[in-house]
C-alpha cells in the first residue's frame, strides 16, 4: 500500500527529490522518470485538469485555499506601483487578489489625499475625481506567467468573466528560464507551482535574476506536517479522498494521484529555506499555515 511506497524510496534519488541537477533520475509522484519525461507528464497533467482546476481546488481543500491565498496577499502587503510576477499563476487567483488589494489601497490613499484638501469647492473635488479615475491601480501591474497554454486560457477567460481588464498580462514561459530581463519585478510569487518545477534550483535562480534589488520572493506551497496525529489524518485524507474526488469531479484519477504524491516528495520547510538561501536571497523565513499543511516562504534580494 502507500506506506510501503513511502518507505522504499531509494537513497539514490535523494538529489532528484530535491529538484537539483541529477542524472536522468527524477521523481514524478512516486514513480521514477527522466527529466524530460517529467516535464512532459506534468504538462499533460495540467492540460487535462485545466478546466476543472478551480472546482477541484475548492472541493479538495474545502475552500480553504482561498484563505491561504488571501494570507499570502496580506503578507505581501503590496503598495500601488508594485510590479508583480506571478509564476505558475495559471488560472490567475493570485493575480486577481493582487489587483483587488492594490485598488483598495489606492482608493484609501486617494481618500486620504482628498481629506487633506478640506476647503476645496465641490467643483474642484469633482475635477480631482476625473484626474484620478484613470489611475485606479496606481500603476501597479501583474504579469501572469505559466508554462501551460491551457491554464493560461482558463485564466484569461476567468479574467474576462470577472471583469478584470487593466494591469494584467499573460505570458507563456518556463519558470526555469523566464522570458524577462534582469531586475524587473518588485515581487515574485509562485503559489502551488514550485512543486511541479523540475529543477527547483534553476527556478530560484531565475527568480533572483528577474527581481529588482530589494525585491521579494514569496512561495506558497504544500509542506510537511510535523504533528504525528495530524499527519496521519492528512495522509488518510490525501490518499483516500482526493483521488476519488478527482475521478468523480474531473474524471481524472491519475492526475490527482500525482498531485498527492508530489506533495509528499517535496522538500520540507527547512530544506526549501536552505535552497532559497543558496539562490542568494536574504532574510529567508517561512510561516506555517494549518500546522504545516501549507507554508509561505519569503526571501529578499538584497
Amino acid at each position, binding site marked *: 500500500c502507500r506506506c510501503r511506497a513511502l518507505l522504499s524510496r531509494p537513497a539514490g534519488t*535523494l*538529489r532528484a527529490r*530535491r529538484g*537539483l541537477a541529477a542524472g536522468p533520475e527524477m521523481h514524478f509522484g512516486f514513480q521514477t522518470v527522466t527529466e524530460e519525461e517529467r516535464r512532459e507528464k506534468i504538462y499533460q497533467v495540467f492540460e487535462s485538469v485545466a478546466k476543472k482546476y478551480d472546482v477541484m481546488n475548492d472541493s479538495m481543500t474545502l475552500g480553504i485555499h482561498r484563505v491561504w491565498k488571501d494570507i499570502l496577499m496580506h*503578507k*505581501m*502587503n*503590496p*503598495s500601488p*506601483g*508594485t510590479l508583480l510576477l506571478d509564476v505558475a499563476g495559471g488560472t490567475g487567483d493570485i493575480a486577481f487578489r493582487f489587483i483587488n488589494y492594490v485598488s483598495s489601497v489606492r482608493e484609501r490613499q486617494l481618500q486620504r489625499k482628498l481629506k487633506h484638501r478640506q476647503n476645496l469647492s465641490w467643483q474642484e473635488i469633482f475635477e480631482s475625481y476625473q484626474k484620478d479615475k484613470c489611475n485606479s491601480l496606481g500603476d501597479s501591474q501583474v504579469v501572469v506567467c505559466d508554462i501551460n497554454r491551457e491554464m493560461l486560457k482558463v485564466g484569461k477567460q476567468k479574467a474576462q468573466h470577472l471583469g478584470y481588464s487593466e494591469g494584467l498580462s499573460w505570458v507563456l514561459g518556463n519558470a526555469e528560464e523566464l522570458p524577462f530581463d534582469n*531586475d524587473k519585478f*518588485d*515581487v515574485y510569487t509562485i503559489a502551488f507551482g514550485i512543486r511541479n518545477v523540475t529543477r527547483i534550483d534553476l527556478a530560484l*535562480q531565475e527568480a*533572483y535574476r528577474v*527581481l*529588482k*534589488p*530589494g*525585491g*521579494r520572493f514569496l512561495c506558497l506551497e504544500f509542506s510537511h506536517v510535523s504533528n504525528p496525529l495530524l499527519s496521519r489524518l492528512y495522509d488518510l485524507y490525501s490518499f483516500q479522498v482526493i483521488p476519488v474526488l478527482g475521478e468523480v469531479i474531473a474524471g481524472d484519477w491519475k492526475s490527482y494521484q500525482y498531485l498527492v504524491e508530489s506533495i509528499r516528495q517535496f522538500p520540507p520547510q527547512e530544506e526549501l529555506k*536552505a535552497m532559497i*538561501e*543558496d*539562490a*542568494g536571497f*536574504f*532574510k529567508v523565513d517561512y510561516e506555517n499555515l494549518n500546522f504545516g499543511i501549507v507554508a509561505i516562504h*519569503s526571501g*529578499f*534580494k*538584497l
Partner: protein
Amino acid sequence: AAAGGLRRAGWRLWRGRAVVRCQHYPPLRALQASAVLRRASDEHKKEPLTSSSQQHFDSPPAGHQPEQEPQGPHPSYTGQGGQESEDYESEEQLQHRILTAALEFVPEHGWTAEAIAEGAKTLGLSVAAAGMFHSDGSELILHFVSECNTKLSKLLQKEQKLVQLGEAEKKPTDEFLRHAVEARLRMLIPYIEKWPQALSVLLLPRNIPSSLNLLTSMIDEIWHYAGDQSTDFNWYTRRAVLTGIYNTTELVMMQDSSPDFEDTWHFLENRVADAMTMSNTASQVQSTGEAVVQGLMGAAVTVSN
C-alpha cells in the same frame, strides 16, 4: 549535495558574522552575492569621513573584483584581536539605512509601511523591501526613538566635556534636567503631527518591552550626566520622578499650540520645580520627624524621673 551543504554552511557562517576570509567563498557564491549590500559598500566609499564612532564595513572584497581599487582611506572595523572584518554591510545595517531614509516621509505618510516603502525607493531598492518590517511601522518608531536617545546622549556628553575643560559652568540639577528633557523633546518637533500615532503603537503589548527599555535607558543617561551617584532607594525614586516628568511633558506637548511650544516648557519648569520642592520637603519632614522623636524621648525621660 556535499557542495550545496558546504555552500550553505559557509553562507550561514558569514551571516552569523564569524570571521570569514573572502577566498573561502566558492566562485559561484561570489556571482550570486548580494547586489545591494555590495553596492552599499561602494556608496560608503564615496561618502566623506564622518565621526569615527560610526563603523563602516566597507573594505572591498579583494578576491572577487580585481578591477575595484583595493583600498580607500576609510576607517574599517576591526574586531577583537585585530582580525579581518566582514567585507559587506550586514542586513541590519541595510535595515537601519532604510529606516533612516524612511523618516523623511513620515510627516506625509505617518509611521506606516508606506513611509518605509518610500524610504526604500530613495535608496534604489524596490518598494517590496518594506516587507522586511512589520506592517504597522513599529520598527520605524523604535528606530527613531533609539536614534533620538543616541543624539541626546552625544549632546550631554559634549556638554559634560565642556564643563570638565572648564569652558562652561556646571548647571544646577533642576536646570540640567530641564535642559535635557527639553532638548530631547525638541527632537520630536518635525514629527509632532504623527507622534500620537507613534505613542499608541509603542504601547502595543508587542512593543512594550523594547519601548520601556529605551525609555528607562534614556532616563538613566540623563541622571548619570546630571551627576547622580546615589546607591540607595533614591536611585529608584529619582528615575521614577523623571520618567513621570518626561511622559507628562510629552503628552502636554502633543496638544500644545503655542508658538515654539512655550507652554510646554513652562509646564516642564513647574514640574521640575515641584520635584525639587518635593525632595526638599521630604528631607525636611524626615528631620522634623527625628526632632519630634527626640523631643518625645526627652519628655519621657523627664516624666520618669
